[in-house]
Each structure stands twice: as structure tokens, then as C-alpha cells.
């Protein structure tokens, strides 16, 4: 499979050229169909696969952004040693272990602690003062993945002296990542990057106060999650479950198509109190959504919005 993807012979390259390429770039970095694969047929296969998964398992990936889900599906085809997307459909429908592996591919979103430090700095400057005016704060991390953001925000709240009045709900579609988030163990080799992020975000303490190094993991202080409820929630199919003062949904909606984004924005809109705060990823925008006029920008660059109507 990998060979047929990488061999340049199809455009008339010489065998020598093929060899040189193979040596320089072993394997392929680009999971995808072999040359000549019919793109219309490919789309049919993907739609059938996702429809089957929805009807058999209830996970609805049908409105995910096409280019990205396509990449991930082909990666899974390769990892399973299959030839095409129809084979993958057959495998995941008959083999729930294969389905679980595919769900991981489709739903795991990589993140980092204090990703986009300037966002956290802006949150500290702009949102924390607003939160001080509430006696009780409800926060929702929608699509929390492995929890890096949950711990980062907890640190922020702790340092602002607001943690004890906060109730934090951290949800994800994927139970495996939720278990990781609960454990709060992050790779030790990333602590240098996270420490730099923390400092750039305006963190005033020593970042290492918050974790204990063990083997190759950094175990975060469990006191940071004493007010956090980790729970499975599916943004695509589940409804709102409370009213929130702040919703974080950063770099989750980028994997959804426009229609699904709008549906989730409607869920967020209904789940926010008046003047509640919505935090999106720094390259996401309400501009392309119909909820644009319902919010004002608290920080236009860092995509911090406040519901005004």
C-alpha cells in the first residue's frame, strides 16, 4: 500500500528516481488514495462508512469537515492493512475493536497546556475581572480531549483566587481521552514548552509547583481538578445540560463542517447565561456563523466573545 503511494514511476520517473525517493522519504507522509482513485467513488465510500457507523454505533461523524476526516480515514485504512475505504467499512461494522481504534483516530484532538499563551493572558486580563462579579461560576470545556486546557484554566482560576467558587464541566465524546484527562499525567518532555507557555501567559509562580515528575510523566496536582466533573458528551447529538458563565471550545469546531458548526453554536448560545463568555480557538471565528451578531468581542485577536443578546 505505502509502496504504491510513494512510487513515482506512475508519472514516468525512472527506476533510479524511484529508488532515490524511497531512500529520501521512506514510506508516505500522506495517507490517501492511490493515484487514479475515483474521487466521486471515494466520497460515496466515505458517506456510506460514516452512515453505517452512525446507525450501528450512534457516533455521528457525518458532518465532519471532509478534507480532515478523509485524511484520518485513509490513515486508518493503512493502519489496519486494508486496501480501501469499503474494506474499512466492513471491518468497523463487524469488529467493535476496530471501531474503537477508528473513533480514536477521528476524535482525538492534540492540544497543549497554555496553547496560545496570549489567549490565556487575555483571559486573565479581560475575563477574570468579570468572573469576580459572580458568587458562583459554571465553566464548560466542550471537547476537552486529554485535559491540557482544563488544567491550564484551573491554574489560572487558582491563581486568581476564584477556583473555589467554580464548578467545571469537562466533556468529550471520547471516553478514553476523558480517562487520561482525569489522571492528569502529561508527557514530561513537554514540560519545558508548557513552562514557557505558562510564563508567556503571565503565570507568576513556578510552573513546577503544579506537578510531580514521575518516570517519564508529569503528574499534575489533583487539587486542580477537585471541582471538575469529567463526563462524556457528544456535541453533535447531545443537548445542553446546564447554564454556563464561560464556555471553552477551542480548536474543536474546526473539524466540523459549516452546518454542524452552526448547530453547535446554537447549543452554546442556549447554554450561556446572558453576558456569558465564549472562547474559541485563535483561528476560529463567529464571523462565518449566523450567531455573529449575538456576541460582542471582548478580545478580537484571541477570539473571546460575550453573549449580548
Amino acid at each position: 500500500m505505502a509502496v504504491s503511494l510513494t512510487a513515482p514511476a506512475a508519472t514516468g520517473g525512472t527506476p533510479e528516481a524511484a529508488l532515490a525517493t524511497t531512500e529520501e522519504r521512506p514510506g508516505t507522509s500522506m495517507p490517501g488514495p492511490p493515484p487514479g482513485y475515483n474521487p466521486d467513488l471515494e466520497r460515496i465510500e466515505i458517506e456510506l462508512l460514516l452512515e453505517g457507523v452512525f446507525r450501528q454505533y450512534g457516533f455521528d461523524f457525518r458532518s465532519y469537515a471532509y478534507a480532515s476526516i478523509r485524511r484520518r480515514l485513509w490513515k486508518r485504512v493503512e493502519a489496519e492493512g486494508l486496501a480501501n475505504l469499503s474494506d474499512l467499512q466492513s471491518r468497523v461494522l463487524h469488529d467493535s475493536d476496530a471501531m474503537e481504534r477508528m473513533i480514536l483516530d477521528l476524535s482525538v484532538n492534540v492540544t497543549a497546556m497554555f496553547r496560545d499563551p496570549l489567549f490565556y493572558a487575555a483571559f486573565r486580563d479581560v475575563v477574570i475581572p468579570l468572573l469576580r462579579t459572580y458568587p458562583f461560576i459554571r465553566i464548560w470545556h466542550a471537547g476537552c480531549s486529554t485535559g491540557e486546557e482544563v488544567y491550564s484554566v484551573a491554574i489560572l482560576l487558582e491563581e486568581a483566587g476564584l477556583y473555589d467558587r467554580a464548578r467545571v464541566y469537562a466533556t468529550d465524546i471520547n471516553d478514553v481521552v476523558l480517562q487520561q484527562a482525569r489522571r492528569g499525567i502529561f508527557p514530561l518532555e513537554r514540560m519545558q514548552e508548557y513552562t514557557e507557555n505558562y510564563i508567556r501567559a503571565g503565570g507568576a509562580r513556578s510552573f513546577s509547583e503544579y506537578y510531580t515528575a514521575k518516570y517519564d510523566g508529569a503528574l499534575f496536582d489533583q487539587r486542580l481538578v477537585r471541582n471538575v466533573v469529567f463526563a462524556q458528551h457528544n456535541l453533535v447529538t447531545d443537548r445542553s445540560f446546564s447554564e454556563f458563565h464561560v464556555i471553552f471550545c477551542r480548536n474543536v469546531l474546526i473539524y466540523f463542517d459549516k452546518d454542524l458548526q452552526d448547530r453547535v453554536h446554537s447549543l452554546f448560545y442556549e447554554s450561556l447565561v446572558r453576558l456569558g463568555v465564549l472562547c474559541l480557538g485563535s483561528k476560529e471565528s463567529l464571523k462565518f456563523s449566523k450567531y455573529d451578531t449575538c456576541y460582542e468581542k471582548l478580545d478580537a485577536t484571541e477570539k473571546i466573545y460575550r453573549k449580548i443578546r
Partner: protein
Amino acid sequence: MKNWMRPKRSTGKSGDQQRASDDADPTAATVAYHVVVIGTSWGGLAALRVIFEHLPAEFSLPVAVVQHRHRDSDGLLARFLQEQTRLRVCEVEDKQTIQAGAIFIAPPNYHLLIEQGHFSLSLEAPVRYSRPSIDVAMTSAADAYGHRAVGVVLTGANADGAEGLRRIADMGGLAIIQQPTTAEVRTMPDAALRWVPTARVLPLDRIGPFLAALPAAHPQAAAR
């Protein structure tokens, strides 16, 4: 295959056979392109400047630029490039519409995906240490726009872009490579040439005028 078994929809232009027949087709010269993806790394800033100087204000193809840079870079690249051109330059936001005559910069630390009519961003793992990855962007352009995609690989110190450009060529699109001798670092164009030996090779100062002369179509028109 029996006639009644033929796929209902044609494959459009895909695969090498199709491309070969395109070359023989006199109407192939009038293919209107929908999107240009430029990929570059080391030396890219100076090279992009030269290209943009040659794009007229009425240039009507959307241009997506994938330039490797540090994950914490700010909007400096977009501001710098804006000073070189009268075309509108912006850093892409998720689901932004692909508009004619504008230059779209892949934001640092995200993959740029080109879909029909709009961009998407992704935080999937870096590909060959790169995010944004030129391979990812070009592959998605090839898949969304088929033979109406144009890929340009410029100077750079790694082999990113070779595989993506190959996909553009495989789908019948137009593959352009900066002539390695005119590149600040020739690793990237050399690698692309090994993957796409049939690509059009142009010296840096010819790439802008060449793009400017390409027939363009409004990008919102159906790609296939």
C-alpha cells in the same frame, strides 16, 4: 466492464491517463484554474516577495501560501507580504471563503486544508515535522479542485511539498517548481522535481508573470 455498469458520474480529471489525454486535447490550454497553492520554507520570504511583485492588482486567482515558520509566529508574515502587493493578504481563519484575487497565508501551527469553496484548519499531528505541511495543503487542493489546482514549490531546506505537488500533477493539475539554481536553498525544489519530473520548472522571476497569465475561473464555481 459492460456499458450499463459504468459509473453514473465520470471521474472527472484524475490519474495519469486522464492527464496524458489532456495534454493532447487542444482545449486543455483553456482550463480555468481555481486555486494556487505556494509552498516554501527556508528563503521563502524573499522568494514570495519576488512573485507577488509580479502579480497585477486585477489578478483573479486565490493564492494560498504555506510558509514554514515557528509555531508562535504572529501576523508579521501577512503584514510583510501585504506591503509587497495590492492584492488583499490575510491569515486564514477556519471555514474562510476562498476568494478570487486574494492571498491567504496558512496560520502557524495549523494544517491548512483546502476544501471546495473554503479553507479548513486542522491540528492533526505535524507531517514530517511540519505544521502547516505543504504536502497536506497541496494534497487537499488536488482532492478538492482536481485539474483546476495549481501547485508551486519554491526554495526550502527540506522535502515537504514534493508529495503534495505530485498529487496535484496526478489529478491533472498544474505543477510548477522553482528552478533549483535560482533557489536560496535547493533541497525543496530538487525533491519536488524527483517526485514530479514532468513539472514546469521556472526561474524565480518568471513564476509571477506565469501565474498572472493563467486563465482563472471564479473559485466558487463547481470544481468538478
